[in-house]
């Protein structure tokens, strides 16, 4: 096992002991990233629950843009395979969706199921000349007939209203909570006349896996703190970057067994990194190389094409430990210290 403590190579036990020591000494530790398979996210959540840490995830900007709108107005959504199979009109909102692999597939195919089957598919764009949420609001106003002065928006609104199965694709991180709320309102309005659904494109992170584990484990979304032995959900309070910047966090555990860049703040406090690939031994006080799920070890991951969770067997099994195993060993070490 490849591991480092304070930049120097360490054996597995030494690294686990050092990690446990950091957490044992901390009063308000934060676990961030959660860019890993379900077993690791679950193990991190259980460890956080035991020691009173808080949780945050890699993709929280996008996740909380969607969640903020969800908790205010709800949502009307579909899946990638349904859009490919059914949509005759697809609106791409903003810049981010244009590069999505799904858009390539939409361009290469036509509706094959449902009442639009056999007809063509039109892909439209909503460009952000004004701030994007404002552009979505203006489109909604045109769709409702409150405004009629922008011919471009009027044409988009007519196309969506005339669709048999419309779909609106967006990146929540680009659009923001207010924009997502407006977009969901647009889609709900359109459903007074036809079918139209929103599709939030997920990032390269595992937030959608983490969100499910969080919801069934704590009853809440990801940004939960256990400092008072009650799961408390607070998107502002448990923002890991904010906790690090304000000095409230006194230790951190970065979990990213999938490739991702670690945050710069990690090096600023006693920290543990469980990462795959070839880690920089200086990225945290304790660095442990773990297997990449789906590549080096098996694991359950968010599967964007299916909009669900799938188990992925290791493509090229490696002798690295799974992140969940390391988290389990850290937890056992902490339990043993507590008993001693």
């Amino acid at each position, binding site marked *: 096992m490849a591991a480092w403590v304070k930049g120097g190579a360490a054996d597995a036990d030494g690294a686990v002991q050092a990690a446990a020591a950091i957490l044992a000494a901390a009063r308000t530790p934060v676990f961030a990233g959660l860019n890993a398979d*379900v*077993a690791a996210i*679950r*193990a991190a959540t*259980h460890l956080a*629950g*035991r020691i009173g840490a808080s949780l945050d995830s890699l993709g929280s900007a996008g996740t909380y843009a969607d*969640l903020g709108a*969800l*908790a*205010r*107005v*709800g*949502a*009307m*959504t*579909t*899946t990638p*395979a*349904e859009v490919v*199979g*059914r949509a005759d009109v697809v609106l791409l909102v903003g810049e981010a969706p244009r590069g999505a692999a799904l858009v390539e597939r939409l361009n290469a195919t036509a509706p094959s*199921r*449902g*009442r639009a*089957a056999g007809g063509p598919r039109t892909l439209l764009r909503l460009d952000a000349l004004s701030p994007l949420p404002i552009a979505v609001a203006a489109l909604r106003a045109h769709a409702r007939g409150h405004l009629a002065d922008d011919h471009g928006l009027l044409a988009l609104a007519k196309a969506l209203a005339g669709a*048999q*199965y419309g779909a609106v694709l967006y990146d929540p991180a680009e659009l923001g909570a207010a924009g997502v709320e407006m977009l969901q309102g647009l889609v709900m309005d359109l*459903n007074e006349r*036809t*079918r139209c*659904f929103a599709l939030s494109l997920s990032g390269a992170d595992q937030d959608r896996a983490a*969100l*499910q584990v969080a*919801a*069934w*484990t*704590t*009853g*809440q*979304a990801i940004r939960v703190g*256990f400092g*008072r*032995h*009650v*799961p*408390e*959900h607070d998107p502002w309070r448990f923002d890991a970057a904010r906790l690090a910047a304000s000095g409230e966090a006194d230790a951190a555990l970065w979990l990213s067994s999938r490739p991702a860049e670690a945050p710069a703040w990690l090096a600023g406090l006693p920290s543990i990194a469980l990462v795959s690939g070839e880690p920089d031994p200086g990225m945290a006080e304790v660095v442990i190389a773990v297997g990449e799920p789906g590549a080096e070890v*098996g694991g*359950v991951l968010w*599967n964007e*094409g*299916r*909009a*669900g*969770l*799938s*188990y992925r*067997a290791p493509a090229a099994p490696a002798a690295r430990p799974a992140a*969940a195993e390391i988290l389990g060993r850290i937890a056992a070490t902490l339990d043993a210290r507590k008993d001693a």
Partner: protein
Amino acid sequence: MLIRIQGGRVVDPTAGRDAVGDVWVEDGRIVPPSERKPDRTLDAAGCVVMAGGVEVHSHIAGGNVVTSRLLLPELYVSEAAPEGHPFAHAGGAAGWIGATYARMGYTTAVEPAMPPVHALATQLELADIPLLDRGALTVMGNDDQLLQLLRDGEGKAAVRDLVALNVASSRGLGVKCINAGGASAFKDGALKLSLDDEIPCYGLSTRRIMGALLDAVEEIGVPHPLHVHCNNLGLPGADDSFVATLDAAEGRRIHFAHAQFYAYGAADPANPMTGGFRSAARRIVDAMMENPQASLDIGQVVFGQTVTVSLDILRQFGGRKGAKPKKWVLNAGDAEGGGVVPFLYRPKGPVSSLQWAIGLEIMLLSGDPERTILTTDHPNGGPFTQYPRIIHLLMSKEERDREIAALPAVVGERSELPTLEREYTLSEIAQLTRSGPAKLLGLADRGHLRAGGRADIAVYRDDPDRTAMFTAARYVLKDGHVIVEDGTVVDWRAGRSLALAVESDRAMERRTEDYLQDRYGQGLDSFAVPDAAFAAEGPVFEDVACRG
């Protein structure tokens, strides 16, 4: 370890037993009385001893349940964690679900709505529910692969093979259809669907889809009959849909989910959608008595705030404007999708009061409690935590009268409830919550206290306040281990997930692989529920055999 549960009133209607006596337990099973000295004696004097409760229809896991938590995070309150489980008091979460059921003496619970596309997520979530055995029903009836196959006129064997493949790959315990064809029809513009309406683009009807699934379930030998959520849930005149669906089963075994929501006769048949509804409980019960092959669960309404979760997106879309608070989610996902609509059953409101009365009425009119299973369709009619209160109302006419006195007069005008004198006995409660649901699921090892049965046992203090009695058991045993004492969890064991042992046909696997690759660019392996996906130390699943 040999355990003697001593001196309690032992209630087991399957053995005609209702008398003070002992129950003996060894190695996880109920055993005949022993001459040997027990290793442990549980004093049950003044207590009632029953088999562990069995839940057949409670939304405790899956994508919709997750969404409901995110939509309405304020629905549950979390409390400080007890020793032994960090999340047992996290309101609405898996740990809380397991602990709350166990405290009530329930030891098995089934999630009734697992879409095959999200089987792994549902099974992972179920596996995190402690203390209980759990299972899930595989939902079919709106997926394009099945509908295509029916449209193309393929025979019974093909449908059987596709259903078997879906049950096997999702590791389901049974099969359910939810407003069959309704989600598909909704995506193609329909806003209402009855038994013989045409499903756009497929030329099918609910009758044909459900009929095909009824046959498939029999051919595979699934112990649990097809679990049916009919068309037109909650609408005045839904009793017609219920009776028509029962007729359409043509004598085949069928289970009706949350029947209370269909026992709504149109009060003004000339204007069914505007004239409101009156109780059709007697019509439903009479139809059930004529069809001994049919069963139902109630979906009892409970006053207060809840959130409705359903894969019936047609119905949820129709009900969106009644959302309270005013926010809702409709996910038109692959096949079924789902809808989550918060709802307030207004305390003392005329509509909710009548709904409340109708559920009780069905149970009180029923001539066969074993086929009349207590559920609230958690959380759709209200939370399962209200079972003790519902049992109290069934067992006490006086308690019912007290509650009815505070409700609007419509309860007496549009239902028979105030005139019903019946009081359930403990044996009948055991039929409603133990032997009935266990038989319905085909789980012969539970729901009773006969020798050889699984030692899932609840011991309650006999208390005229039945609400208190059934809320916090004196003892609960799971597989022969005491997991609850005086309403407190004392042993955080994990149960198993019950999955039907069914083989899938190789030719259908190849066909399905091609279908899925074409649709998702991914094959069967991305839908699988392999043991390797679970972090647990011991085995997660336990096989349940098909009918011979």
